[in-house]
């Protein structure tokens, strides 16, 4: 079986602005890749490097 390691990508500026013009019901179909990137970047924070600050309060982490 083939293997490709998991690597997060980040949401793309163009995709983000384009998807604002997509009706809500079609976002899932037309922007599946964007949703996936947002899920990774925002929900799971998988893309955040180990040296980054916690998602919560910046003031306690600067």
């Amino acid at each position, binding site marked *: 079986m083939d293997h490709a390691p998991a690597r997060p990508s980040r949401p793309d*500026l163009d995709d983000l602005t384009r998807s604002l013009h997509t009706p809500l019901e079609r976002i899932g179909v037309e922007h599946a890749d964007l949703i996936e990137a947002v899920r990774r970047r925002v929900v799971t924070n998988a893309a955040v490097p180990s040296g980054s*600050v916690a998602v919560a309060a*910046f003031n306690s982490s600067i």
Partner: protein
Amino acid sequence: MGGSCRRISQFVLKVHSRCDLSCDHCYVYQHADQTWRGRPVRMSAATAQSAARRIAEHAREHELPVVHVVLHGGEPLLLGAAGLRELLAELRAAITPWTRLDLRMQTNGVLLDEELCRLFVEYDVQVGVSFDGDRAANDRHRVFAHGGSSHDHVRRALALLRRPEFRASYAGILCTIDVRNDPDRVYEALLAESPPRVDLLLPHATWDHPPLRPGSEPTPYATWLGRLHRRWVDDGRPVSIRMFEALRPGGGGTEAFGLAPADVLVIEADGSWEQVDSLKTAYHGAADTGFDVFDNSVDEAARHPGVAIRQDGADGLCATCRACPVVDRCGGGLYAHRWRTGSGFDNPSVYCPDLLRLIDTVDAYPPPTPPAPADRSATSPVDELLDDLATGHGSASTLALLAATQLSITRALLAACRDRSGTTAAWELLVHLDRAAPEAVRAVLEHPFVRAGLVHRLDSSAPPGLSAAVDPLPAIATAAALRAGVPATLHVPVRADAITLPTLGSLVLPGLTESAEVTVRPGELQVRGGSVEQTVLLDPLAPPSASWRPTRDVAVPGGRVLLEDGDPYRDCYGQPVESRLEGPAARALGRTLAAAWEVVHRDVPAHAAALDGGLRAVVPLAPDPARPLRSATARHAFGAVAVTPHPDPETMAVLLVHEWQHAKLGAVLDLYDLVEPGESTRIRVPWRPDPRPPEGVLQGVYAHLAVTQVWQSRAATDPGDASAHAAHFLGWTRDGVDALLASRSLSAAGERFVGQLRHALEETVVGSR
């Protein structure tokens, strides 16, 4: 001789060592390594348990933020639904207490059915399917042992994963290319399956067994992939194709390209630790480490010299690659492709000429457009956005762009929730309102705490079934219906006797059960649930209702800002938030905020414009006599800042400016890596005794720069304390910026950004003389 401890974050579990297909390019069965013949067929429960414990132990000891576990084979689906459920439950139970577990599976899809899809959605497993394109392409290699086609089977599996209820588990397609296939047809066949992502793989080959090169062309792989790349670019990059993204400058690479450390270990069905699988293509036993999960920890396996050298970036490459101008993008290609009997892995990839030419092709298409005559600079929108923010504040249009990306992220999260829960009445109402009254939906989705609720719902770090977060969609849809004046009825979850409608207020009704039926009518809400049945009049002229607590707002120069003291998701600042303010306290805070906003306009008009463009809500923090002056911003709540209700507008103005810098930079960090991923450097800063991570320093200098500008402006009229404050913050900012630049921890975009900040700082210094 142990060497330093390696952190491994990706684990491949060979859960079943046989396959129902018989692909002739498969390295598990068809290549040099034949160790599979001596392995047990399936991973036993005891092996799975030890494996899960080893991974958990490693995650705990190294405090890993995430581990990726890929279920693999052979064919993992041969384990069956019951076997897979047992395995997934074991992994979740052992690992999730210590870190976030990202579960994946790579399958040929033949056995995929609805029951399995439901299981994968339940355990949040991302499923990648191997599929080589159109029927002719796929069946060139991917066939059953009797020679029959697998094309229809795999397409059926992909159709299942596309279904809305299973889409959340659809990771994408893995396609092994063959230059004898028609690249256009392969491209179209892949696109037709609407995968979230496509991975293209070069066929496994070594210098001992070079790749097929039919005809006289020296670099057929570059030609073939170049053709696909051109189609993809021409079509507006309709799907993420990781190979092309990885090969772009700064693209970051995959295991097959780029120098990112290969922090992968494999666990075989019998529990032995091995190196990456594709090494099997090289020689018999190539991937062995001699360790197993029963007797050896991850750290021990990771110290194996073969694993260790692969983590050394450019230093682990041969001399040719080290001197290669594109080594940062190619990384010497896939490790296994470097093998040659005699010199081992100390060679460039057997695909080297193709890789070199492919990188040229990717760079050359689309051709760079000459700058338009009126446009003197050829900066990309990304650079423009960052450059504008690096002035220290950011223009109104930059703020509008950042706010738009934040709204778009919230909409994507909403769609992700829908992927997860399927179509509900709340979703259908939102879809309807999005068409009929888009402004109402937008106003609710722009509320800073909607994202926090959606993220909470989607975050799967909790084991399935346990502590399931409430579905935020019904409250969002009800709020939008109310704003739009559209009658609707939904069941809305209740939290602590309350239902909060974002931007509008909270219904507080003791006696409600888990959810209540809420009906929106013009000017009123009707609530029914548990022992409660009540109509709440929302007419501002009606007598105030004890059960409806409207969200109060304040007129400020930028419009109106909400005093958010009711939304449950406002509790995201890592410190206690204040509960609902009494009327006089709320009015006092409102007056302070309005006056502080005026002060920002007076002191730093450029910052005030950015504040006007995006600050929508202020959250009161709970008072703490030991630390009366506190403020905070949260990454998931763009558009809001939290403050202790300090009465002095001059002080409050500084807090607002400071926090708003964090909010802007936080929104930027959703889009770009300004710090090099994986960077673990710690930097000494003047404002704290302990060394800080680069991102913290970046946030610090950005906020301190703005505060410097506030005090400098004040110093112009008040030469007393203000100049001293200005000098103090200027020193902090300058030292922070220099330390950041010296740390070499920033990405290219980050270097540029901080370099520009340094420039803004020099202007600030000149301005202060």
